[in-house]
């Protein structure tokens, strides 16, 4: 049998009811905020950043509390954060790469977003 800590029910941390409901209410509030903020115009970039920051906070709440990662063994956190690092590398490099090719695509675009033939030399 595993040795038991005085403050735990055996194998892992038990989340209190108050914490569970509190996190849920925070998530609902953030959802409400992110929907409301869309109606305010900060410019396309800022609006996207705000939406992603709110989604990020919601994600952190879910992972740390609903998924118990905050109370988990640290190595699981290393695995998860390591994964996120690779996701960031992956998406960033893909976007940098496609942005590098954009100048060779732009001559084909018209203001309406339609493709046209480039001027013949």
């Amino acid at each position: 049998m595993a040795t038991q800590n005085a403050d735990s029910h055996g194998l892992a941390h038990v989340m209190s009811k108050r914490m569970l409901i509190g996190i849920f209410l925070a998530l609902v509030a953030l959802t409400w905020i992110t929907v409301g903020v869309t109606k305010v115009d900060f410019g396309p970039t800022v609006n996207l950043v705000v939406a992603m920051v709110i989604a990020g906070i919601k994600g952190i709440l879910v992972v740390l509390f609903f998924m118990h990662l905050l109370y988990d063994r640290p190595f699981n956190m290393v695995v998860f954060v390591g994964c996120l690092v690779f996701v960031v590398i992956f998406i960033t490099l893909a976007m940098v790469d496609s942005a590098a090719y954009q100048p060779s695509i732009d001559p084909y675009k018209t203001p309406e977003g339609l493709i046209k033939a480039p001027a013949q030399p």
Partner: protein
Amino acid sequence: MSDTESTKPGHEHPAHLAHHFDNPQQQYNAGKLGMWLFLTTEILLFSALFCWYAVYRAAHPEVFIYAHKFLDVNLGAINTIVLLFSSLTMAWAVRASQMGDRRTLVITLSLTLLCAFAFLGIKSIEYRHKWHEGLLWVSRYDPQHHDTHEGHETAHTQAATTPAAVPVVAAASATTQRDAEGRIVETLVIKEPAKDLHVGPTGVVETWTEKHEMTQGHAAKMGESPRLAGLFFSIYFVMTGLHGVHVLVGMGLITWILIRGARGEFSAQYFAPVDSVGLYWHIVDLVWIFLFPLLYLIH
């Protein structure tokens, strides 16, 4: 082997402990690490789709600004709340299993399952609506269905859309026969750079179809549909579709632990299946937390 071990004095050996683990704690930790490793593969799987989204949104922002208006923010927000609530009940179920509270476990898991049904129900309403409106992936994107009830040129629209299945050359020649008004020359010009850009054959026909209908003054009623507007719906259906498949799998897993939980198989010393299914369900929720603003809340 486990029999001889369990007969040793002072060495309790519960039925749920696999013989290659020293104790339940070690088994639990190993299982949890395995689950987290699996979840990273899930995150990486979805990250490929988020990458797809990011690259195309950066390249064609007008497509996303135009097309997201067809999504119902209210339905999306309700689904977000439904999934968040299901995450709460799932986390509560894990708590109940840790406390050995069978009744609460069954109730919370049933609630989670109910939320999953509600989520898919709302999702199917959204899918059906898009299907009727012709708001589909690039090769099937045909929002002209919108205007059919307004009458004129329905047959013409049908005719213009039909060649989408046939090769580019055939589509071009069909236009030539239909109406020869200088527009044909434009059509041919459109195709050449599209080929150079390695847009697939369906993409080329798409370009032609939209351009063709635009010149008829038909698409003007819709507002300006940018080139490749169907791209948004390709991304929408693949991302929400894969997410929906995960919800379905999650429902199967929840049913499984619901049955086992009702039989009283879980206790403070053995609740790893509930815990792992919970982690999986939270990842499904996590993906939706990012999908919702990216698809529904584009400014």
